[in-house]
């Protein structure tokens, strides 16, 4: 042990000795506390609603909630059916649809089933108005009747491209559901029935492709993706880390101890989440992987130091105390900064990020506490043998690297600086894209089915509650004319597959009431007549459907649903902006407040909302981390300066992403604070050695840099490898949001190492004062000391 012991060192030594003296007690306490907290896991549940991705204060969510309180909620299942013949107007396919429509009423919580077979077709026959199912007894229809059905269905704006494609290649059955929201298994049980019906129909009508999409399938996909991640990713992650540990720590007992520790840390975080009533999403479920990654870093530092000490001939117990001493401060500081980075996620707009942040922070703190209590206690009880050998390892490499950096500091400073700035300028090219079907990869059935269905039908509804002049105003002829104008405008837009508006219903009823005279396929020009048509329409509505699906209760607004094809967020926004512009320009005053809303609208702005809300979070994280750095380095200027080499790699990672990938979902908002908390760790280690080199050893700047390289160079590399592997592994998640976040963070961590090695020293060497790699006064004794501290 060195002669100079700080108060912190003394505390660490005292703590380590106490832990070792009461090691059985420590182990027992750890197990009890862990199991106690982990018992909260029983309260965990999987989220099964896309809504959970939005905070209560999200303005798009609020608008949509209000909309859904006004009109019928459109939670649904959507069967897309494609016959082998390529034309749905045949007896077999229509029989399938007829049978499926009938059977779908039995699906739990179904409110309404719609298809072309039970479409309430209205037509006039002399003075009679006939209301009947468009297709009945489909098996017995003659070819001429089939053609007639085709003509009617394809001419009907309510059906064309919504329940049957204009080219007759695909047909659909839509099941509207409403859950009582009393039990967690409502959705999965319903989905089971929905899939069973599909299987049953496929068996009975061979050759037909049947795929299921709809909001309920999206919701269950979140569950299934999360579940898939838990069952495949986490076990694999343990195996990967096991391999990493074996290579790096080269000790079976060390590996076992570490695995127990990280398992406990994850269990504690899940337990806390359970007590906190968290509904797990695929995002929050990446917390265990992240905790594993970060927790292992703590353990590796301590174990490597201990091994090195034992190699150098130190006795085991003393080596444990020594490892605790030299790592106490850095492990605490890095754990704190990382936890702060994750806690900053609470500023985000998306609750799953809060959960991820809090669960990770809990896990990180738990791992830290265990690494200074449980880990030494456990390891002291296990056999831990190291071949005694003085091995300077690859310190020669780091010495050369240090020399290279010092020699070329100007080139590196300007070269890397310029390269960084060049790459950073590409950031604005990043396109924010949150196409929710594409959150899921091909392993998830929903994604495959959505890809299939998107070939035929639109999938992204955008809703408008088009305001009328006061109560009963939807019958106002001027209103209806404007509504029709808007409907026509929407139909003419790119990527619009269907528009559902009462103006079409009005026209049809007007024609029906005039003996189906085609000249009367126009809007009624009298308010009373329009109101009476609505009454007629209400009277003719089928079971499960009511006027509130289209018109609000006091008839002061009607709903227009625009269904978009599978388009990017940017294209969606273009449509949204155009529609707002149309309303601003064309709508009368009473209609001006009409706004687009829907899940699609919510997701279109989810990235912006989160980036916006994370700005405060990031600023607070940067300040808090800066304060900790000032403390840790005991230097205000160095602490503040350290933010630069930490901020740059994150920005560079975004820049590289912009150049290589181009688009990113809303996870981008989380990356900055999370990776900042992690990348500062390297800087903490490097600069604390640099400072020690200057203050304790009296080196000049160049010498201090070499000292830092030699002492922590290899530990930083090891650390970075673990972190990059852990975060890059998130890319294998079923859920793209995790994959993006993992890859971006891994990129940032990789760049951070490069910057810490090549740029940070160059920064230190800039400015006044001569930086010479000259008369250094290190000796053999110093070098030995260096090696014991290699893992700091």
């Amino acid at each position: 042990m060195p002669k100079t012991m700080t108060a912190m060192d003394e505390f660490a030594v005292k703590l380590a000795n106490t832990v070792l003296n009461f090691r059985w007690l420590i182990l027992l306490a750890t197990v009890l506390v862990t199991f106690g907290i982990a018992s909260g896991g029983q309260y965990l549940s999987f989220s099964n609603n896309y809504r959970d991705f939005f905070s209560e204060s999200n303005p798009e969510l609020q608008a949509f909630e209000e909309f859904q309180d006004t009109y019928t909620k459109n939670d649904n299942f959507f069967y897309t059916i494609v016959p082998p013949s390529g034309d749905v107007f045949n007896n077999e396919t229509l029989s399938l649809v007829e049978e499926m429509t009938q059977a779908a009423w039995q699906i739990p919580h179904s409110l309404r089933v719609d298809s072309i077979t039970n479409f309430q077709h209205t037509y006039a026959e002399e003075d009679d108005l006939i209301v009947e199912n468009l297709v009945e007894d489909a098996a017995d229809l003659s070819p001429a009747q089939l053609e007639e059905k085709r003509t009617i269905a394809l001419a009907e704006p309510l059906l064309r491209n919504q329940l049957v494609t204009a080219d007759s290649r695909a047909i659909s059955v839509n099941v509207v559901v409403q859950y009582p929201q009393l039990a967690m298994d409502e959705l999965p049980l319903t989905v089971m029935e929905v899939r069973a019906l599909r299987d049953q129909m496929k068996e009975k009508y061979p050759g037909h492709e049947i795929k299921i999409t709809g909001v309920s399938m999206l919701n269950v996909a979140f569950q299934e993706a999360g579940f898939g991640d838990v069952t495949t990713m986490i076990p694999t992650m343990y195996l990967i880390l096991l391999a990493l540990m074996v290579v790096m720590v080269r000790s079976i007992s060390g590996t076992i101890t570490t695995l127990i520790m990280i398992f406990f840390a994850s269990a504690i975080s899940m337990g806390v989440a359970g007590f906190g009533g968290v509904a797990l999403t695929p995002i929050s479920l990446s917390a265990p992987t992240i905790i594993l990654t970060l927790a292992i870093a703590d353990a590796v530092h301590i174990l490597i130091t201990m091994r090195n000490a034992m190699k150098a001939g130190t006795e085991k117990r003393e080596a444990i105390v020594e490892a605790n001493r030299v790592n106490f401060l850095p492990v605490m500081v890095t754990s704190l900064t990382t936890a702060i980075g994750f806690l900053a996620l609470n500023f985000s707009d998306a609750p799953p990020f809060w959960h991820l942040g809090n669960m990770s922070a809990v896990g990180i703190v738990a791992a830290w506490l265990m690494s200074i209590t449980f880990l030494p206690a456990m390891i002291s009880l296990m056999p831990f043998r190291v071949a005694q050998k003085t091995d300077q390892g690859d310190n020669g490499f780091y010495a050369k690297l240090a020399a290279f950096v010092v020699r070329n500091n100007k080139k590196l400073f300007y070269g890397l600086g310029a390269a960084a700035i060049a790459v950073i300028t590409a950031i604005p090219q990043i396109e924010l894209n949150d196409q929710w079907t594409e959150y899921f990869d091909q392993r998830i059935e929903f994604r495959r089915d959505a890809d299939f269905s998107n070939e035929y039908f639109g999938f992204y509804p955008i809703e408008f509650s088009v305001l009328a002049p006061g109560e009963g105003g939807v019958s106002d002829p001027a209103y209806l004319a404007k509504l029709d104008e808007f409907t026509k405008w929407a139909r003419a837009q790119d990527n619009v597959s269907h528009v559902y508006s009462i103006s079409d219903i009005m026209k049809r009823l007007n024609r029906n009431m005039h003996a189906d005279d085609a000249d009367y396929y126009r809007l009624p020009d009298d308010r009373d007549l329009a109101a009476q048509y609505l009454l007629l329409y209400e009277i003719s509505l089928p079971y499960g459907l009511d006027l509130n699906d289209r018109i609000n209760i006091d008839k002061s607004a009607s709903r227009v649903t625009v269904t978009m094809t599978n388009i990017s967020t940017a294209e969606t926004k273009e449509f949204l902006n155009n529609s707002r512009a149309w309303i601003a320009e064309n709508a009368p005053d009473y209609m001006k407040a009409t706004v687009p809303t829907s899940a699609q609208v919510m997701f279109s702005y989810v990235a912006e909302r989160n980036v916006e809300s994370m700005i405060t979070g990031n600023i607070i994280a940067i300040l808090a981390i800066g304060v900790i750095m000032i403390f840790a380095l005991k230097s205000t200027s160095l602490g503040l300066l350290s933010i630069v080499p930490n901020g740059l790699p994150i920005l560079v990672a975004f820049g590289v992403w912009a150049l290589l990938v181009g688009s990113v979902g809303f996870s981008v908002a989380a990356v900055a604070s999370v990776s900042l908390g992690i990348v500062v760790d390297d800087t903490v280690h490097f600069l604390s050695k640099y400072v020690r080199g200057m203050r304790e050893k009296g080196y000049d700047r160049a010498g201090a840099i070499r000292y830092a390289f030699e002492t922590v160079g290899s530990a930083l590399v090891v650390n970075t490898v673990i972190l990059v592997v852990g975060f890059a592994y998130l890319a294998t998640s079923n859920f793209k949001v995790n994959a993006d976040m993992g890859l971006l963070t891994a990129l940032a961590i990789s760049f951070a190492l490069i910057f810490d090695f090549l740029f940070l020293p160059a920064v230190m060497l800039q400015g006044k004062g001569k930086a010479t790699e000259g008369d250094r006064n290190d000796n053999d004794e110093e070098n030995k000391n260096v090696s014991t501290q290699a893992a700091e």
Partner: protein
Amino acid sequence: MFQLKQQNKRLTAAFVGAAIAVSSFASAGYAQDDAAKQKGYEIAARSDRSDTGFESSEVEAVMILVNKAGQEMTRELSFKTLERENEDVGDKGLTVFSTPRDVQGTALLSHAQILKPDNQWLYLPALKRVKRISSANKSGPFVGSEFAFEDFTSTELKKYDYKYVGEDTLDGMKMDVVERFPLYKNSGYTKQVSYIDQDIYQVRKIDFYDRKGTLLKTLMLNDYREYDGGVWRAHTLQMSNHITSKSTTLKYGDYKFKTGLADRDFVKGVLKRIR
């Protein structure tokens, strides 16, 4: 037709007995079922019988629709009903809307059928034309309310199979609980559970189960008053939808009975003459 009245069905015990006898020649295992059926039928029939013989009625009503968000909408309308003695045909009804103003004078004439689609004629004053509406659909919502068309018209005895399930108490009153199963092919319900008090034999509550057997709606019938001739009528009917959290309250004014209405007042020609 629109007042949930019990149809005049002078079914003798002999008829019931005969029907039971015919249907229960099977094993003893069915005997219990049949006993429950018979008791259910008898209770329903007694309730039905208790308010018949009114010949015709007229009443004004206010319909208050409330959505999930608590917003309300009010409609005023009047009902005229002609009771028909023949148990195999339903009553005749005339519904006239008076508010909102833009539908004033809109009238719906209906000749209820027991197991077939009803005959309906609609008059739109703005169009000055009567249209017969042919629709198999009785399960759709009645003018935006939580009442389905069949909820009004389908109280006729012969529209159901019955099953007595036991006794219960409701608001301190003893109730007979009778399940009834719609016989109409296009009904939106698989089952209704009716609560009939043992004092004046009136239906106090009905639970409606949808096509998949889930409790969909509950109707509470309150504010019963007795009119001349021992005819009982509920004056506040509240239908609550358990799935959509919407509800409709129907408040009736004073009934007028035996108002001299006749078949000629329920033909399509009268529709145009309504103010």
